[in-house]
C-alpha cells in the first residue's frame, strides 16, 4: 500500500505504547467500558479495535440498557408458543412456520434520528436496512409497512420532515418492487424534533432456504459484496482522524447514510440466486456498525474465528482509515461465508448481476477475530467480546411522580369534558369534526405515493385493517400484518398501553380474517438514563411480554430506539407492535368497508361499550390528555378474534372493521368512506344495553369491539356463533348504498342525524393535502368513482 497516508496503529504498536491517549469518550464509551476493553485485551486497544468496540457496545447495537428487560420476551415464551417458531429473537429476524413448507420472517425497525436529520435518506435507508435483515434470513422480501409519527401537523418542521420521509419511503421501496401494504400516520406535538420513522418488512421462503448469520467451516472464505464502502454513516468515527496526517481527505461527510435502491434490488435478486444455488454457508447484512458488526457476529456465531485482510475491502473513498472502514455504514452491502469449492460459482452469480465483491479472508477455529491491514495485525480480539459481551446495565427506574396526577385528571371531570355534544345536530357535527382531525384524516395523499400492486399478490392494503399478501399462488396461503400503537394510552399507563397496542394489532389482523401467529415490536422511548423513562420502558416490556404470553403468540424480534427526546422533552412511550397472522386462503380476507353490492346487509356491533374517553381522539380534539386508558381484556380479544376469523373463513361476513381511535363514530364513518357506501343505524338498544349515553356510544374507545356487515341470510348462523361464545353482538342497522350518507338514530334530541358522504369525504380527504401539497382534481375524481 504505497498510497497509505496514515499511521497504522497495529496490535504490536499498542502493546508497546500502553499510555497512548485514545478518544474513547468521544466515541461514546464510558470510562468503565473503556477499562473493561483494556481488561479483555490485556493491553490498550488499537484504534481499529476501539472503533469496533465503541460501535458494537453502543446502545443501538448492544441493547445495553434494554437487555435486562427484553429477556422477558424469551422467558415468557411457552413451549406451546414455540410450536411454529423456527427462529426466535437474536437472529436478524424471527422466522415462523406458515405450513405447506413455507416460512415467513418479519421485523420492525426504527430509523428515527436519521429521518429527522435528513428525511428522504433517513427514511429510504430505513427501508433498505430492514429489507436486508429479511434477505439475510434467506427469504424473498414481499412487502413493507411504515408506522410514522410526526409533530403537530401545522408545525413548520413537520412540512420539512413529512414530505421527505414519504418520498424517501416511496423512492426506495417502490424501486425495490415491494408493495407497501399499510402502516400508521400519527401527528402529535410530542414527536416534534423526534419523528418516529419505523419500517416493517416481511419476507417468505421455503423451509430449506432458511439461512443464519454464522461463519462455520474452517477454511471457508469470507466475502463482502454489494456496494463499495464509503465514508457515509461514519458519525463518531471522525474523531479517529487523529490517525490521519493527510488533511486533503474529505472533512465533511454525511452522518446519515445515502441509499441506492437500484443496488439493493440487484442485491436482493443476487442473494436469492445464491440461496437457490446453495452457494453460501452463512450470511449477514451490513447495517449499523458495518464490517465491525458483520465480522464479529458471523465469527462468534460460528466456529469462533475469522481472519480478514482489510485492504481487500473495495472503497468508494480511498482515504478511509481502517477504523473508518470498520465503522462505515454504507448501504447495500452483505457479507457471506462460502466454501472454496463454491467460490467460482459464487463469482459467476456476482458477474451475472454485475455486483462487486471482494474476498476478505477465511473462517478459522482460533477463537480470535484477526484483522490485518496490509499484513500487519490491527485487530486481534475474541469476537464474542465485541458482539455479545457488551456492557449490560441495570438502569434505575421508578414510577414518575406525575403519573398519579395525570391518571387522576380524567376527561369527564376536566373542563374539556363538559358541554359534550348531546343533540342530533351537535353529535353529527362532532363526527365530521372527528374525521377531519389530523389523526383520523384520509392518508391516501401519503399512501398513493407507494406502490401497493407490485408483485401481484396484494390482497388487502391501506386503508384496510391489515395488509394481506398471498404467499402461495396455488393454494392461496398468505399472511396478514398490522402495526399499531397509541402513544397517548402508553403515556397514561405504559403497561396497559403496551397491551393495548398488542390488542389493536391482534384485532386488526383477526378482523381481516388472519389467525395471529407472531409479534415484532419497535420500542420507541426517551432517554434510558432518566429513571422515569426507564420505568415506562420496563413497564412496557412487562406488559407486552405478559400480553403475548396470554395471547399465545411469541415476540420473534424487534428493535429498541432510545434517546428520542430533545431538550429534556421525551416522546410518549411508543411501543409499536406488529402482529403477523396466517390465512389458509387469502381469498377469504375481509375488507374494511361496505361494498356497493352489499346494499341492505345487516350491520352488527360486537363487544361492549363502556364510558372510556380518557386518552381518546375526542379528548385529544379538546386538548385533553389524562386519566386511565381503556381497559384491556385479552381473553375478550381472543374470542372476538375467533369470531371474526371463523366468520371470514366460513364466508359469513362481507366487511369488518375494528373499533379503535375515534370509537364507533370513526368505524362507521370509515366503513362508509372506504367505498362510498352509506349506512343507517340506531343507537337506542346499544345505549340501553350498555348503559351509556349516545355521545359515549359514539366516541368511547372501549376495546374488544368490531363492526361487521353480513347478508341477512347469514344473520342466524352468525348470531348463533356469537351467542355460543357468549359474546355480545347487537344489530345496529343496515348498509344503505342508495342514500349517499350516514344516518344515525338514537335517544337524543332530534332523534337522528345524517351526514352526507360527499361532505364528509371532502372534510376528511382534504386535511393532509391541504398542508403538504396540492391534490389534483383528477385524483379526487378517481377516488370518488
Amino acid at each position, binding site marked *: 500500500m504505497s498510497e497509505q497516508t496514515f499511521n497504522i496503529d497495529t496490535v504490536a504498536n499498542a502493546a508497546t505504547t500502553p499510555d497512548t491517549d485514545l478518544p474513547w469518550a468521544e466515541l461514546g464509551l464510558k470510562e468503565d467500558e473503556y477499562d473493561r476493553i483494556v481488561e479483555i485485551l490485556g493491553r490498550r486497544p488499537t484504534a481499529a479495535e476501539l472503533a469496533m468496540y465503541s460501535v458494537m457496545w453502543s446502545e443501538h447495537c448492544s441493547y445495553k440498557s434494554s437487555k435486562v428487560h427484553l429477556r422477558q420476551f424469551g422467558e415468557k415464551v411457552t413451549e406451546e408458543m414455540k410450536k411454529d417458531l423456527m427462529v426466535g429473537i437474536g437472529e436478524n429476524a424471527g422466522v415462523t412456520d406458515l405450513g405447506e413448507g413455507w416460512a415467513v420472517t418479519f421485523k420492525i425497525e426504527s430509523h428515527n434520528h436519521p429521518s429527522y436529520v435528513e428525511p428522504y435518506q433517513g427514511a429510504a435507508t430505513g427501508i433498505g436496512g430492514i429489507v436486508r435483515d429479511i434477505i439475510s434470513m434467506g427469504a424473498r422480501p414481499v412487502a413493507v409497512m411504515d408506522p410514522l409519527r410526526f409533530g403537530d401537523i401545522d408545525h413548520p418542521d413537520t412540512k420539512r420532515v413529512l414530505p421527505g420521509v414519504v*418520498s424517501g419511503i416511496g423512492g426506495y421501496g417502490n*424501486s425495490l*418492487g415491494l408493495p407497501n401494504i399499510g402502516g400508521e400516520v400519527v401527528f402529535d406535538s410530542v414527536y416534534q424534533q423526534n419523528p418516529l420513522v419505523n419500517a416493517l418488512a416481511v419476507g417468505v421462503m421455503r423451509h430449506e432456504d432458511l439461512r443464519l448469520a454464522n461463519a462455520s467451516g474452517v477454511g471457508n472464505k469470507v466475502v463482502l459484496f454489494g456496494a463499495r464502502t464509503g465514508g457515509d454513516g461514519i458519525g463518531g468515527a471522525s474523531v479517529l482522524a487523529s490517525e490521519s496526517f493527510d488533511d486533503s481527505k474529505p472533512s465533511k461527510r454525511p452522518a446519515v447514510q445515502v441509499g441506492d435502491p*437500484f443496488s439493493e434490488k*440487484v442485491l436482493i435478486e443476487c442473494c436469492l440466486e445464491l440461496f437457490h444455488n446453495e452457494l453460501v454457508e452463512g450470511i449477514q447484512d451490513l447495517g449499523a456498525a458495518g464490517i465491525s458488526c458483520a465480522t464479529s457476529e458471523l465469527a462468534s456465531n460460528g466456529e469462533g474465528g475469522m481472519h480478514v485482510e482489510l485492504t481487500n475491502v473495495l472503497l468508494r473513498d480511498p482515504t478511509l482509515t481502517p477504523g473508518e472502514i470498520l465503522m462505515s455504514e454504507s448501504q447495500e452491502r452483505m457479507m457471506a461465508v462460502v466454501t472454496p469449492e463454491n467460490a467460482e460459482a459464487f463469482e459467476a452469480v456476482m458477474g451475472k448481476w454485475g455486483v462487486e465483491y471482494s474476498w476478505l479472508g477465511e473462517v478459522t477455529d482460533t477463537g480470535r477475530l484477526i484483522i490485518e491491514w496490509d499484513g500487519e495485525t490491527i485487530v486481534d480480539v475474541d469476537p464474542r467480546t465485541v458482539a455479545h459481551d457488551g456492557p449490560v446495565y441495570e438502569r434505575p427506574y421508578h414510577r414518575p411522580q406525575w403519573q398519579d396526577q395525570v391518571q387522576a385528571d380524567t376527561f369527564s371531570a376536566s373542563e374539556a369534558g363538559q358541554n359534550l355534544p348531546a343533540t342530533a345536530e351537535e353529535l353529527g357535527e362532532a363526527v365530521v369534526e372527528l374525521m377531519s382531525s389530523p389523526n383520523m384524516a384520509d392518508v391516501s395523499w401519503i*399512501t398513493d405515493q407507494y406502490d401497493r400492486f407490485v408483485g401481484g*399478490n396484494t390482497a388487502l392494503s391501506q386503508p384496510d385493517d391489515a395488509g394481506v399478501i398471498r404467499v402461495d399462488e396455488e393454494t392461496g396461503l398468505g399472511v396478514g400484518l398490522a402495526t399499531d400503537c397509541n402513544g397517548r394510552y402508553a403515556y397514561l399507563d405504559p403497561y396497559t398501553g403496551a397491551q393495548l397496542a398488542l390488542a389493536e394489532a391482534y384485532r386488526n389482523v383477526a378482523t381481516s380474517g388472519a389467525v395471529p401467529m407472531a409479534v415484532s415490536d419497535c420500542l420507541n422511548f426517551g432517554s434510558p438514563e432518566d429513571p422515569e423513562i426507564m420505568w415506562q420502558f420496563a413497564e412496557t416490556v412487562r406488559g407486552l411480554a405478559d400480553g403475548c404470553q396470554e395471547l399465545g403468540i411469541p415476540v420473534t424480534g424487534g428493535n429498541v430506539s432510545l434517546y428520542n427526546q430533545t431538550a429534556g422533552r421525551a416522546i410518549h412511550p411508543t411501543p409499536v407492535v406488529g402482529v403477523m397472522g396466517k390465512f389458509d386462503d387469502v381469498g377469504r380476507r375481509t375488507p374494511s368497508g361496505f*361494498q356497493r353490492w352489499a346494499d341492505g346487509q345487516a350491520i352488527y356491533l360486537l363487544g361492549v361499550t363502556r364510558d372510556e374517553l380518557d386518552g381518546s381522539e375526542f379528548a385529544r380534539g379538546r386538548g385533553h390528555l389524562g386519566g386511565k386508558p381503556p381497559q384491556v381484556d385479552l381473553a375478550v380479544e381472543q374470542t372476538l378474534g375467533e369470531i371474526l376469523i371463523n366468520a371470514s373463513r366460513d364466508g359469513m361476513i362481507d366487511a369488518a372493521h375494528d373499533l379503535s381511535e375515534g370509537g364507533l363514530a370513526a368505524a362507521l364513518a370509515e366503513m362508509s368512506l372506504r367505498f362510498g357506501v352509506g349506512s343507517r343505524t340506531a343507537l337506542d338498544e346499544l345505549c340501553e344495553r350498555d348503559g351509556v349515553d349516545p355521545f359515549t356510544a359514539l366516541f368511547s374507545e372501549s376495546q374488544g369491539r368490531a363492526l361487521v356487515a353480513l347478508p341477512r341470510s347469514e344473520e342466524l348462523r352468525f348470531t348463533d356463533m356469537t351467542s355460543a361464545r357468549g359474546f355480545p353482538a347487537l344489530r345496529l342497522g343496515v348498509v344503505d348504498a342508495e342514500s349517499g350518507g350516514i344516518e344515525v338514530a338514537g335517544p337524543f334530541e332530534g332523534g337522528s342525524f345524517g351526514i352526507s358522504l360527499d361532505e364528509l369525504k371532502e372534510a376528511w380527504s382534504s386535511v393532509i393535502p391541504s398542508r403538504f401539497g396540492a391534490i389534483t382534481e383528477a385524483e379526487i375524481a378517481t377516488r370518488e368513482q
Partner: protein
Amino acid sequence: MISETPLIGDFNVSPSGPLDGARIGVITFPGTLDDRDAARAVRLGGGTAVPLWHADQSLHGVDAVILPGGFSYGDYLRAGAIARFAPVMETVVKEAGASATSSSPLPVLGICNGFQVLTEAHLLPGSMIKNDHLKFICKDQVLRVENTSTPWTSQFTPDELIAVPMKNQDGQYVVSAEELEQIEAEGRVVFRYIGENPNGSRNNIAGVTNERGNVVGLMPHPEHAVEAGYGPDDTTGMREGTDGLTIFTSVVSSLAGGNK
C-alpha cells in the same frame, strides 16, 4: 437463463389451455420489478412466459416480447435510457422495428418502464418526463382503448373503458407537435386516460403504437389487472378488476392466427 427461486409468481409453473403454443418473452433488466407479474399475466392469458435476460441477445424463438415495469438501472440517468443499450434490445429493435423484414414483425409490449425503454430505443414516438405534480402516484386508472387493431388489443371492443392500476413517477407523455398530430391522425393512440389527466400527458395519451402496429407502449399496468382479488377496484367489488387480461389474451389469440 434466469435461475429462479421457486417463489411467488414462479416463471416455471407449467401453463395450461389450448393456446400454450404462444411463447411470450418477458425481459428482465437489472432493476426490473414487474417481470414476475408480466409472466403471470401471460400464463393467465393462455400463453407460455419465457424469461429473457438483458445481456442475452437471443430471443430464444419467442413469438412476442414484453418489456415489464420497474426502474431499470435505477432510472438514474433517465428512465429507460440505459436499458435501451442492452444486448437483448438490439435483437428486439431488429425484429420489431421499421427495418424488420418480416411481413409480421415481432409484437412487442412495453409497460411503464418498458414503454420508456421503447421510446428511448425509438421503437415508439415521444418520451416520458416527470409527472406534472412531481410525485410518484399509485392509483386505479380508467383508460379508453382507442385502437383495437394491434395484436395486443385485438380482443377489446373499440372505445372500451378499462380500469388498470397506474404507478409511476415519470409518466408524463410528451411528443413534438408534428408527431402528435401524426400519431393522432393515424389512429396510433392506443390508450387514453379518462377523467382528469393524471400526470400532464399530451392529449391524455396513456399508450401508443408504432406505424406497423406491432409495438405498443402504455404507462399503466395491465399485468396488475389480470386476477380477481388482486387487481384494481371495479363495479363488481374490491380488487376485482381483470380488464388488463384482455391484452394478454389478445396477443395469444393473435399469435394463434386469431382476429388480428
